């Protein structure tokens, strides 16, 4: 059997909500000004940790039924809302026939616990801690029956199917930052191999909760000093400043998009990943290895890079070294680390970077520096191609190329 030529994966819809705003237009407007954008932060609520709180969102606009909202935790609402924006942007919302064959590739952790219940149970426990009959009775009486559905990783996807009726297939990838890379890679591979035409890819983080902060802080990953950009945290030991965010993309085969007259923001290709053991120099070596595999054309010249640096060390410093070393390959990197303005969003982070790359490519304008360090030169660049990176705060290195679809 003869195979058709490989298809291309186009971004035909974007949904993005964060501390900066409730849609892509708000993000473009705030990020594409002439000077470094001002981040929205809250240093008090979870002190000594700073977070980027979600902008005011009326969830009912995308999740009209209160019965649906009641059965979701906030990370799911953030995701379902952003997913709805992406579907509407791609003109899929309400089109039952297309939604029926829209495949979900979701990057997710699991959702929030009932923190007040946990605290009550722990406070009233005896000297041995919460255990035995006391724990059993407290949980049986105290847990909301539907809370587990707000915690399960795959219930972000489940809620998207229920609320937006996207039901072609449904896969949830786990694993912090790399979950986002896995979700994008799965969708792009299936499009390029002709295994599917329409994909909804995304993730969400609710950074405004202690259990999410705890998961990072057990290994000392959070940044505790006053806010600074990801490149400027090294002197204080580095660290992550989380940001609430929902990022979704509609990825569509170019043939399918042409057939229905959908306009592309950009094409995604070369979704690459590795998992180094994080010894000294491992991240820089992994990044260089991935970069060599990219189908860059031309290989040299100006290259816009949207960096997913988390601020965690030593990965952030090693990424910086890798970027500095690109000059030896004839590449002039123009770097913007979006984590400095949106915060770090774990599973959703890479997808948010692709969304920003797609906005820049379709608007034919790159972003001003997102910080004032020497890493992000004020040099302008024509964003007909943008490299998006992510380097997990613990593990995983990922890259993808977004470029003009034309």
């Amino acid at each position: 059997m003869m195979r058709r030529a490989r298809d291309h994966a186009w971004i035909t819809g974007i949904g993005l909500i964060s501390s900066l705003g409730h849609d892509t237009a708000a993000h473009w407007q705030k990020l594409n000004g002439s000077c470094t954008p001002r981040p929205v932060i809250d240093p008090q609520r979870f002190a000594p940790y700073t977070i980027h709180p979600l902008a005011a969102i009326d969830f009912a606009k995308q999740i009209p039924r209160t019965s649906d909202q009641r059965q979701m935790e906030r990370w799911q609402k953030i995701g379902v809302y952003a997913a709805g924006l992406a579907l509407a942007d791609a003109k899929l919302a309400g089109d039952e026939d297309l939604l029926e064959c829209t495949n979900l590739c979701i990057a997710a952790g699991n959702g929030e616990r009932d923190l007040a219940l946990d605290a009550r149970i722990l406070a009233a426990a005896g000297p041995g801690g919460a255990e035995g009959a006391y724990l059993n009775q407290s949980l049986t009486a105290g847990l909301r029956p539907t809370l587990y559905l707000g915690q399960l990783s795959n219930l972000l996807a489940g809620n998207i199917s229920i609320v937006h009726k996207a039901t072609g297939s449904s896969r949830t990838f786990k694993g912090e930052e790399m979950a986002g890379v896995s979700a994008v890679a799965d969708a792009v591979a299936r499009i390029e191999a002709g295994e599917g035409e329409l994909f909804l890819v995304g993730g969400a983080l609710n950074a405004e909760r202690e259990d999410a902060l705890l998961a990072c802080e057990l290994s000392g990953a959070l940044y505790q000093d006053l806010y600074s950009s990801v490149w400027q945290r090294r002197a204080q030991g580095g660290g992550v400043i989380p940001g609430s965010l929902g990022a979704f993309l509609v990825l569509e085969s170019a043939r399918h998009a042409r057939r229905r007259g959908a306009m592309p923001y950009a094409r995604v290709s070369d979704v690459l990943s590795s998992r180094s053991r994080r010894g000294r120099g491992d991240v820089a070596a992994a990044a260089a290895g991935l970069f060599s595999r990219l189908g860059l054309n031309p290989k040299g010249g100006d290259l816009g890079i949207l960096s997913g640096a988390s601020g965690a060390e030593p990965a952030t410093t090693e990424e910086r070294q890798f970027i500095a070393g690109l000059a030896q390959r004839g590449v002039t990197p123009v770097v913007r680390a979006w984590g400095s303005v949106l915060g770090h969003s774990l599973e959703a982070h890479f997808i948010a970077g692709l969304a920003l790359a797609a906005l820049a490519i379709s608007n034919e304008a790159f972003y001003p520096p997102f910080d004032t360090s020497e890493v992000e030169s004020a040099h302008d660049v024509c964003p007909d191609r943008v490299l998006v990176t992510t380097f997990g705060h613990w593990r995983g290195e990922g890259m993808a190329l977004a470029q003009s679809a034309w």
Partner: protein
Amino acid sequence: MGSRMLDAKGRPVVVVTGIGLVTSLGVGARASWERLVSGQSGVKPITRFSTDGLRTTIAGTVDAFDITPLSAHDLSLTMAEVAASEAIAQAGIGRAGHFPGPLIVATPPSELEWPHLNRLLEGPSDAGLAGYQRILANARSGAFADLARHVRFAAIADSLQQRFGTEGEPLSVCTACASGATTIQLGLEAIRRGRTEAALCIGTDATVHPEGLIRFSLLSALSTANEFPHKASKPFSKRRDGFVMAEGAGALVLESYDAAKARGARVLAVVLGCGEKADDYHRTRSRPDGAAIIGAIRKTLDDACVAPDEIDYINAHGTSTPENDKMEYVSLHAVLGDHLARTPISSNKSMVGHTLIAAGSVEAVFSVMTIGAGVLPPTINYDEPDPDVPLDVVPNVSRPARVSTILSNSFGFGGQNVCVVFSGEPA
């Protein structure tokens, strides 16, 4: 162009060359299988924690490993390692510490358990803090870094990759109780695309801890037939009253047929095809007309290039909940029609319990063994047929039968439906 063995759609044929298993019935595929086909149950009273005040006090726990203190992460990882070691040894693939392909693993929720929260609360902080503020202050001390593995969603995959030396970024997946089947689907697709010649697919789950049990109990999903644990899981029978939580891990080595043949490996079964379809009806229930399950089965048969009447046997999802077993019947009937009455179908869960995230992997291993052994495992505890679910469930005792094409079903909360078709080695 070489002379690759291609399927009817022109894709490389994918086969199983190694299997490994840990279940409540035993450690190792052979040990589990022998007790499975003799109709024994692995369900028993829970002894690892107090069940005082709980509605359900039984489970198919795996108690074969000495893990102290016990945690979902540590037991899930150990079981996955044991199952994967067995599968890789049987396949005889790669070399020590290097598996020549990617790892795809289905893992349970990554979360702190109550002993961890107790420890964190009792830490050194003395600033008059309470609850999570105190816990965070203690975490900040760095003294609890050993707990990080419990909340890292990629921790199990990371350890497995290091142990077995799989290639590339490992995938951690969750499609609820269809997760195990999803790992096989992802492996199948990767080999068909030519991205790899082999894949290591694992599902593992060890979440029989107090909160794990209570949250399913609060969803009214669990059997409360505590008095006779062996009899509690009774798929398709009239008095079924919920599933029985269980622990386990299943591992499969998938390879392209050509790669397996080239190195002289024994082919245990062919993975003919996979399919999936998401439901949009309810978080824990299927559409009443079964449309999503029907869609998953039809897509699977289409992917496998198999007609409905070519299915010889069905390895059921068969959880023993009133809802699941009815919907599984309704949906199968819609696709198989009259052929369903002639098609035996049994539920491994009647004996091992419901291994949740691992179920699709465990049942895939049993499906492969069913083809190899020519014996259909029974559905035990089938004492009273449900007239609304008229199926040949291979009641209570196993049955010798040569079957060449098996459909394995996996359905999960959140509207996840994934099916796989296995067959014997191509002639």
